[in-house]
Each structure stands twice: as structure tokens, then as C-alpha cells.
């Protein structure tokens, strides 16, 4: 084998000019393949690491209240953070992510803006600090100026946005936005920094400190916005962490323990909500018979149904208004709300004795007005469970969306949820692989295009390889006859030619790899100004970004060698099958 290898190497350098030319062609093909793959992987990395990660984190917990995607609020921060703490042990950082659409007025110029909160409370790691610095290349002001509230609410904005709004450092910027409860909010902001955006996505938002945007958007002290979780090893852990958080957030039945007053009577009761989609209302209408009241109204969007015994205790009649009060989990004053009773359940109806069943809309209004504490176990025992016929139409604490596999599935479910007209909060747990599966597909498509283009290129190059090999064999036919005559085996002859081609392919692809890395370095130096062109998202700080990987580089080199061997096999076999006598007689 060693002898054959030596012969092959010697033959390779014997035909220098021909092999160098062929090597250059193979090297060029290898360079294009590796360069293109690094570029597509770079795009994917930019999208994942710099865009998806900052917009949704490696794992995200997001909400939708009243079917509105912009109402990113959950009213029990402890519940969410506890689930994350227990389930996401790999988390490096968990932070609130708030982005609110609004209208800003600068100096005589107005524009639509997105206000984005930046959490300045925690300590940044060195890596994070570097990332922030590369994302916010400040032309004026400093990143830490967001903490200085002496002149008002400080903000950072991109130079393009500042130019459009005609504002400079220290200028005031008025903004109007609709908060998470749909309440109109306005504020005067102060330009504390103008930066050069690292990519096109960074040129739209106006950045301000998280606490400032929380206040502007109307978040209460125990409200929590969408959470973005950064992981150490997202490629391997993101999906698992998302699954665990999802399991930890399974909702229970929404229950408000309180007391009601009516006609001078007082009674403790438990308020439950019922779903008001058509199917649920129809189902409830069939299962629950009324002792009094209008069934059309009771099983409607405005219905309030009271249990038979509770109605007797409170001396309530259909049409009466009762005053319901309860203690809050965080708000000691609790909440008070008035309900007009539209129906009284029959004594045999599957409604527990002390229950007030309220339509979903009015129930959740109360539930979120002052979030009740978890119901006592002795109360929960008497509550309907899955064996009760009405259990399926009762309102949950919140609706947990099922885990999805792709972005399309997420979008589809969101649309379905919107149509379901759920009046409570919907919670969704997603990893970056679901939120940005389109990015993965984009990378796959780019890689596929690269591979196909590369293969076409190689097909052309390999025709050259075959041709060269055939010429070599033809030229060396008598030599083949000689070595066969002095005892070289057929298999060694075949191996000799295969090794010759393999060595050529290996050297050439290594040179091509070197060339690819050199080209990447040179291309990365070139500054490209894309302005507001969306293609700017492919750049980092106006430079092309390449992300070569060891696996891809080795794989492409191996692929080239394997293809070369495959191509050389048949001519080599043909050469080895020549009879020694015929080969020695060969003359041209």
C-alpha cells in the first residue's frame, strides 16, 4: 500500500502542469462550496443570534390577552418566574421583553415607532457587553445614559430615525401609545443617544429602559411581559427547556372565592367563568336546566347563572343585581363587581351549591381586576372536575397553547386562538426553533442551492478529471503493461490511479479551503451601505458575515475526495484490466 502510495504521488508530480491546472479547477470548486456554505450559515447565525435571539430569545414565554397579540401581559409574575426557575435550569438570563407600537413626534415630523425596553438592572456578562456594544455603535451619547432620568425619560434611537424625526441629542420626542390594557398613554422622551444600527432591524426601534416602558405601557407591579430566556447551549437545550416550562405552566380552573350581597343578605360563594363560544353555550344550555330566568340570556355572552341553593340563601331572583367582593392575591383591598343574575340553576343541575357561573368576558374582567389567590383545597374539592358534564366549558386560569413544531403551526394556532375569542390570557411557550423555523428553512434552502450549484460546477470539473485520467492511462499504457509484467497486481494498478486522483483532489480541496478562508477575510473587510434596504439584515455592521463550521468544511473536503475517487474508479479499473502483453504492445 505504501509503495503504491509512493508511486501515485510520484506520478502526480511527474505531470506537474496538467495536474496543477486540474488542481486549480478542483480548488476553485471547493472554495466556492465552502465560501457559499459559510455565507448561508452566517446569514442563519445573524438571524438567529442577532435577530431572533433579541426578538424572542432562545426560549420565550408570551401571552395574548383578549386575542390581541399586542396585549403581552400576564398578571401573576411570580407564577411565570417560578415555572422558569424550576424548569429552565440551563438559563443564563431570563428577561422581560417589551415592544410597543406608537406614534412619535419630533421636531415638526411624526412617524410610527416601536418602543423597546432594555433591561439595565442586571449585570451584563463580558460577552453580552460586547454584543450590546456591537449592536449599539453610538455616534452620540452613551448606552448608560438610559439610566440618567434627570432630563426626562432617556431614549436611544438610530441615526436614520433621528434624521427623519429631525431630532438631535437632548431634543424632546413626544410619543403616544396604546398600553397593554388598551389605555392611551403619552410621554415626553429625551434623546440621550444616537447610534449607527448594526442591521436594518435596529434602525426602527426607539430604545428606553425597561422600567420606563413598563410604566408607559401600563404594567402593574405584579404584571409581567413576555419573557425571553437565553441559554448556554441553545442548539441542544432550547426545545427541551421549552417543553419543561410548558409542563410547569399547566393551568387549573379559574376560581374566585368571595362573598356576595343582595337584598340585605350575604353569602360566601365561588365564582367560576363559562366559555362563551357557540359550542360551549349550546352545551351548557343542554346540560343545565333553569329554575328561573331566561335561558337565551343566561347562556349568552352576558349570562350570569347562580346555583339554586345560593340563590335561595341570597334571596336572589332573576334580574337582581348582586355585589360580589373578593380578596386579591397581591391587592389586599381586593375587588368588587356587580353582576346582574340572568338565571337560577335548577336544584338538579350539575352546578355546585355555592357557585356563581359568570360569562367569560365579565368573569375575566373581575379575575384580572384583582387576581384572586389560589382557592383553598377544601373549596377545590367541591368544584367540578373532569367527571362533571360542565367541566369542559369552565374558564381556565389561562389557556396554554400547545407546543408547535414550526412557525407556520404557531401562526395557524394563533389565528385559531384569535377566532376562538377567548377572553382570558393565552400563554405560549416557544423555542427559537419554532418561532424561527423559517430561518432554518432559509438556511437549508441556501445550503441546498449552494450544494446543487457546487455539484454542477464539480460535474464540469470532474469531466476534466475523467478526461485527464483517460489521457494519463492512454499515455502510460505500456508502463502499466511493464508493472503488470514485473508482478504488480491488478488491484494495485487500480489503487495507484485512484490514489493519484484522490491525492490530487485532497491537495486541491485543501488549497481551495485556504482560498475560501482568505476570500472570507477579504470580503468581510468590504463595507456595504444598504441604507434601508431589507437586504441589510444579511450584514453585520455593514459587513458581510461568514460563519464557517469545522464539520461543514471537513464534510465538503471529504465529499470532493469521495467524488473524485468515484470518478476515477472506472478508468482505473479499465487500466487494471489491461493484459500485460497487450499493454506492452500498445503503440500510438
Amino acid at each position, binding site marked *: 500500500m505504501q509503495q503504491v502510495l509512493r508511486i501515485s504521488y510520484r506520478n502526480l508530480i511527474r505531470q506537474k502542469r496538467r495536474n496543477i491546472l486540474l488542481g486549480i479547477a478542483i480548488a476553485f470548486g471547493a472554495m466556492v462550496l465552502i465560501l457559499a456554505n459559510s455565507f448561508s450559515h452566517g446569514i442563519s447565525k445573524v438571524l438567529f443570534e442577532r435577530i431572533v435571539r433579541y426578538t424572542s430569545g432562545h426560549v420565550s414565554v408570551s401571552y395574548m390577552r383578549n*386575542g390581541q397579540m399586542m396585549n403581552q401581559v400576564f398578571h401573576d409574575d411570580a407564577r411565570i418566574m417560578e415555572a422558569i426557575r424550576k424548569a429552565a435550569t440551563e438559563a443564563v438570563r431570563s428577561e422581560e421583553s417589551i415592544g410597543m407600537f406608537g406614534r412619535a*413626534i419630533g421636531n415638526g415630523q411624526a412617524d410610527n415607532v416601536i418602543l423597546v425596553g432594555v433591561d439595565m438592572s442586571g449585570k451584563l456578562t463580558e460577552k453580552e457587553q460586547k454584543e450590546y456594544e456591537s449592536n449599539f455603535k453610538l455616534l452620540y451619547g452613551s448606552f448608560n445614559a438610559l439610566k440618567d432620568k434627570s432630563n426626562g425619560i432617556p431614549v436611544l434611537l438610530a441615526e436614520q430615525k433621528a434624521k427623519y424625526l429631525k431630532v438631535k441629542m437632548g431634543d424632546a420626542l413626544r410619543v403616544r401609545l396604546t398600553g397593554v390594557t388598551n389605555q*392611551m398613554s403619552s410621554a415626553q422622551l429625551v434623546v440621550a443617544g444616537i447610534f449607527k444600527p448594526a442591521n436594518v432591524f435596529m434602525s426602527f426601534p426607539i430604545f428606553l429602559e425597561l422600567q420606563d416602558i413598563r410604566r408607559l405601557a401600563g404594567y402593574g407591579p405584579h404584571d409581567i411581559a413576555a419573557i425571553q430566556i437565553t441559554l448556554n447551549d441553545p442548539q441542544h437545550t432550547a426545545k427541551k427547556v421549552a417543553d419543561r416550562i410548558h409542563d410547569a405552566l399547566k393551568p387549573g380552573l379559574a376560581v374566585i372565592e368571595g362573598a356576595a350581597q343582595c337584598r340585605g343578605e350575604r353569602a360566601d360563594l365561588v365564582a367560576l367563568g363559562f366559555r362563551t363560544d357557540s359550542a360551549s353555550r349550546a352545551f351548557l344550555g343542554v346540560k343545565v336546566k333553569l329554575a328561573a330566568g331566561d335561558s337565551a340570556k343566561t347562556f349568552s355572552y352576558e349570562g350570569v347563572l347562580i346555583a339554586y341553593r345560593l340563590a335561595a340563601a341570597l334571596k336572589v331572583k332573576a334580574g337582581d343585581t348582586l355585589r360580589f367582593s373578593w380578596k386579591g392575591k397581591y391587592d389586599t383591598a381586593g375587588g368588587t363587581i356587580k353582576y346582574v343574575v340572568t338565571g337560577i340553576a335548577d336544584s338538579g343541575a350539575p352546578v355546585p351549591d355555592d357557585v356563581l357561573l359568570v360569562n367569560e368576558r365579565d368573569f375575566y374582567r373581575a379575575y384580572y381586576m384583582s387576581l384572586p389567590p389560589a382557592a383553598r383545597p377544601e373549596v377545590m374539592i367541591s368544584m367540578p372536575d373532569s367527571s362533571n358534564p360542565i367541566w369542559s366549558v369552565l374558564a381556565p386560569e389561562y389557556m396554554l397553547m400547545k407546543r408547535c413544531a414550526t412557525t407556520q403551526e404557531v401562526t395557524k394556532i394563533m389565528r385559531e386562538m384569535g377566532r376562538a375569542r377567548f377572553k382570558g390570557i393565552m400563554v405560549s411557550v416557544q423555542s427559537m426553533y419554532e418561532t424561527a423555523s423559517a430561518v432554518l428553512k432559509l438556511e437549508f434552502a441556501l445550503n441546498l442551492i449552494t450544494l446543487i450549484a457546487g455539484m454542477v460546477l464539480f460535474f464540469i470539473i470532474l469531466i476534466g478529471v475523467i478526461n485527464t485520467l483517460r489521457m494519463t492511462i492512454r499515455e502510460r499504457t505500456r508502463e502499466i503493461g511493464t508493472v503488470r509484467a514485473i508482478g504488480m497486481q491488478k488491484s494495485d494498478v487500480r489503487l495507484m490511479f485512484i490514489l493519484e486522483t484522490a491525492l490530487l483532489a485532497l491537495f486541491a480541496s485543501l488549497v481551495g479551503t485556504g482560498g475560501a478562508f482568505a476570500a472570507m477575510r477579504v470580503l468581510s473587510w468590504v463595507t456595504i451601505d444598504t441604507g434601508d434596504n431589507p437586504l441589510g439584515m444579511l450584514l453585520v455592521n455593514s459587513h458581510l458575515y461568514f460563519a464557517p463550521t469545522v464539520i461543514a468544511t471537513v464534510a465538503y473536503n471529504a465529499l470532493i475526495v469521495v467524488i473524485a475517487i468515484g470518478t476515477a474508479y472506472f478508468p482505473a479499473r479499465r487500466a487494471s484490466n489491461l493484459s500485460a502483453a497487450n499493454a506492452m504492445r500498445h503503440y500510438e
Partner: protein
Amino acid sequence: MRTRTIIALFFSAITVLSSGYAGDMPAIDSLLKKMENNISISTDARAKVMLTQQKPNQGVKNFEMMYYRRDKDNAFLIVFSAPEAEKGNGYLRIGDNFWMYRRNTRTFQHINRDESIGGSDASGEDFETRKLTELYKPAADSAGNEIIKEGKLGSIAVYRFEVRAKVSDVSYPYKIFWVRTDNGLLLKEQSFSSSKALMSTAYYRKYTTVLGKFVPVLQLFIDEFEKGNKTTVEISGIVTEKLDDRIFTKAYLENLSK
């Protein structure tokens, strides 16, 4: 989105403002109650609505639409007849279902009843008949007195009173109303953001009576945040006869748009 905003303004107007009231300096709560008692027009109705929108550097845009309302379930249908770009587009709400129809694509898009439509100013409350007294309570000064006083709006004697939101899910947490002292008609309304910045001013310049209720037929909405934006709403041809149920169907809206 622009059209939706206009529709929202229109609905704010007809929902909140068709009120009648007479009396001396009252408590704010009683004023609000009397206002809301006069809000609902319990009849089917149709009317022509014209909106004139003015924006700085964008000139004037006119919109024209037909509005149909069914009393028994508060269903409504809106169909645009002008400008050409909007002609045939419409909105249909029946029960908890709310659709937007686009003539160009001949498609209905389902909109959540409580949804802020397309992220515009049009919020759920514009399409609901929630009571003023459920949403707002009297604002009090530092001494705990209700902020209400008698004054003049132009030459008309009015009560000027302030209210603040009771609940969090209203667009404007603070409002000031100017109502006539003689018949309780609302003439002016200012809406404030949570930081008490004036966001919009509405003037109700002309009323008509329909079945004993007041309907504002000429209204002016001024955007105080973005100066120069204003919208005028004119309602005409109000007819209160019973409307055919087939009007409140998708098919009818689709046919109208052909």
C-alpha cells in the same frame, strides 16, 4: 387602518353621545346615569354617514358609508360607498362575530370583537355598549369634592365636569365633558392619557331627535397629539324602520359590493 379609525370615531360618537338631560347643577354620577339612560336607541335604524378627514401634508379625504343597525341583537353592517378605493368594503357584526370585508379580494376577515382593529384607534369599547357609569366615576379635587362647575361654551351655558376611569380597559383614563345646562346635551369632550396629556377633543355641533332620543349629526374630532389631524362626521338620512334580517348577512354585504 385609516378607515377603521374613522369608523371608531363614528361609533364613539353614536355610542356615547346620543344623550338628553335637563336639570340643575347635579352630581356627576347622576349626570352620567342620565347620559347613559339616553344612549341606546332601541330600534332598527339606517343612516348615511360622511367623514371628512384632514391631515397635515395629506389634504382632505372624504369617506361615505351606509350604516345599518338591528336592535334585537345590536348587529350592524357598514358599507363604504366612497371614495373609489374603499367602495364596497364593509364591516359586519353579529353577536360575538365581527368581520371585515375587502371587495378587492372578495374575502371576509374575522376580527375579534374585543380586538383593537388592525392596531388602530378603534378599540373594542367603540363597538360595545358598556355603560358610562361602569367605566367612569367622578373625579375629585384635593378636598374630595367632585370637579364640576357651571360655565359657558361660547354663548351656551354648560356644566363642565371631570371623570376618571373605574376600570383599566378604557382608552382614555380621564375625560372632561361639557354638557348643556338646559337639555343636557353633550357639546364638547376632552380625552386625556394616563399622564393627563390632552389627546383628543370632540365637538358635537348639531343634534337631531330620533324617537325622542338625541343623535349627534355633526361632530368634529380633533387629534390634540398630532396637531392638524381632524375628522368631521356627518350623519344624515336616518330612518328607523324595521330592517330585513337578510341585510345582516355576509351574502348581502358581498352582493352590495358587486
